[in-house]
């Protein structure tokens, strides 16, 4: 079963008189429980593709089936519900709400939930924060958290709705190597738990932690292969939480 099926996706931007073919005929299948890395030079169309995968944007041409559903034919409200229920998006740049605590940020998607009422949203949000190792920091606002911690809040927000897919656009973009390792360990664990993950990265090192790599250039896929020598990140329990005074280190 393919969770994502892209057929000949094209996205064109018009800037002044210039037309930019940000996506130029992308055809791609992502099976369920895949862990996919999209790599490519800056401006190759990775974020544009992620926005389409995340139902934030629509392609100019081509067909996108998400869990077998043709997304092109859905209306705005249906797309909003898919974003809310099926997809967890970790944005390039953390995009947390400022002056809003970690817990409240994680609670936000549950507030807009329509399919069924979550009985104890607060407990669910706390559990998501616990999974990313931030339970002690849940009443802190983004400006009181480090970059890595903010990124983990963003991941908890993506997780809290039990999505089928997590889309992460450069989740380790501006993190040091140890924090990157933590985040990757978390993703690997989530993937083991059965969530399909698509992440965008510049770094080969990060891509080697995934199962499947797609390389893009100028809006096209130039390379698509399985990772033969997969690397495994250290489990997060053994990794000290930066800035946590109770940390053993």
């Amino acid at each position, binding site marked *: 079963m393919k969770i994502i099926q892209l057929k000949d996706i094209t996205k064109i931007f018009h800037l002044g008189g210039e037309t930019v073919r940000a996506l130029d005929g992308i055809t791609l299948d992502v099976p369920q429980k895949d862990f996919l890395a999209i790599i490519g030079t800056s401006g190759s169309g990775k974020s544009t593709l992620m926005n389409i995968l995340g139902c934030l944007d629509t392609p100019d041409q081509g067909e996108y089936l998400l869990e077998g559903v043709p997304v092109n034919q859905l209306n705005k409200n249906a797309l909003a519900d*898919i974003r809310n229920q099926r997809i967890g998006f970790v944005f390039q740049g953390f*995009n947390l709400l400022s002056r809003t605590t970690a817990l409240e940020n994680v609670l936000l998607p549950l*507030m*807009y939930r329509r399919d069924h*009422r979550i009985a104890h949203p607060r407990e669910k949000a706390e559990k998501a924060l616990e999974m990313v190792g931030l339970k002690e920091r849940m009443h802190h606002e983004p400006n009181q958290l480090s970059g890595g911690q903010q990124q983990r809040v963003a991941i908890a927000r993506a997780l809290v709705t039990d999505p089928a897919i997590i889309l992460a656009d450069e989740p380790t973009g501006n993190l040091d190597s140890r924090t990157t390792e933590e985040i990757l360990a978390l993703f690997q664990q989530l993937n083991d738990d059965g969530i399909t993950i698509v992440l965008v990265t510049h770094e080969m090192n990060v891509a080697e932690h995934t199962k499947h790599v797609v390389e893009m250039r100028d809006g096209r896929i130039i390379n698509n292969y399985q990772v033969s020598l997969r690397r495994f990140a250290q489990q997060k329990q053994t990794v000290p939480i930066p800035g946590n005074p109770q940390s053993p280190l």
Partner: protein
Amino acid sequence: MKFRQFIILALRNILRNRMRSLLTMLGIIIGLASVISLIALGKGSQADIEEKISTLGTNLIMVKPGSTQTHGVRGGAGTRSCLTMEDVTAISRLARKVLHVSPLIRVSGQVIAGNANWNTSIEGVDITYPMIRNYEIAQGAFFTPRDMKVKAKVAVLGQTVVDELFPGLNPVGTRIRIGAIPFDVIGVLAEKGQSAMGNDQDDLIFVPSTTALYRMGDGETVHDIMASAVSKSAIDQAQDEIAAILRSTHGLGADDEDDFEIRNQTEIVSTATQVTTTLTLLLSAVAGVSLLVGGIGVMNIMLVSVTERTREIGILIAIGARSSDILVQFLIEAVILSLSGGVIGILAGVGIALGLGAAMDTQVIFEPFTMLLSVGFTAIVGIFFGYYPAKKASMLNAIDAMRYE
């Protein structure tokens, strides 16, 4: 639950910009406060006026001579008195809805008591007059039927006259002179105070109408006829009866106009309240304008807020908020803003009215319905003026909004 959270979020956003929110509400606050306080004071002074008018008498009907018509040439009102004792007798005998009737004959004259003297109005009336006009006797007694019959030279004094002529003394039993005629003082009226028109209702002397008519007047001129209807609801009927009787005693044909004027108490009240009605109308206009201005203030600040929070809105849409969610969220914020302005405005208005009422010594009457209505109206203002900014927020594109700096 979602709704409750929207309200909590809206309150937080409003409280985050306390000063700005307060300034935004100010238009609505000032508008409502002034309207609520002025209406309360207006209603209060209207009630004051009505109370004063009711001191005129109970179910009072006044008949005045009207303009006369000689060969088609009309004189002004009261050109010539056409009311006579005959009219009074006819009314008292024939009008069934009339409880009491009395002539009123005005005589002027200097009143002398010992070496004090005072100019006041001397009114010749029947023994029923105190009942018609709600006068009470404080000391002594009013005239008797016998006094009427013998045209007795007896007088009942108003309190002001007593104060002028007999300061600190009981005048009953003493003798005064009105012009050249000596009168025995047989009674003093209880104090009544100012009338609605501001004249002193205690600056007068009552003498029997017969005495006034035959000893002091011309023997025929009755200036006014005062009557009281049997009940408030019978006033109009009594008035019609009186009109019919007078038309017949005056021998008016079917085509002739009335040569008299009849007014009743409710007409006087409505003249007085007409002023306040106009005032209320004006106030409503002020309220409308201030709510409009306040509403525009709300719209302005909501537009600023939407722009400031563009990135936030983008995030909310990206994590699955529907357009309608965003719309409702911002509408709630606008409504809370204007509604709090309304509530604060009403509280301020009540405070101002109570303060001014105490200072000006007038009644203050609050109408809960008006208040509820205006609070409801501020909510509508919030929805109306908040809709455009909220719609704007809900139409944002998530990707562009998240990129917004």
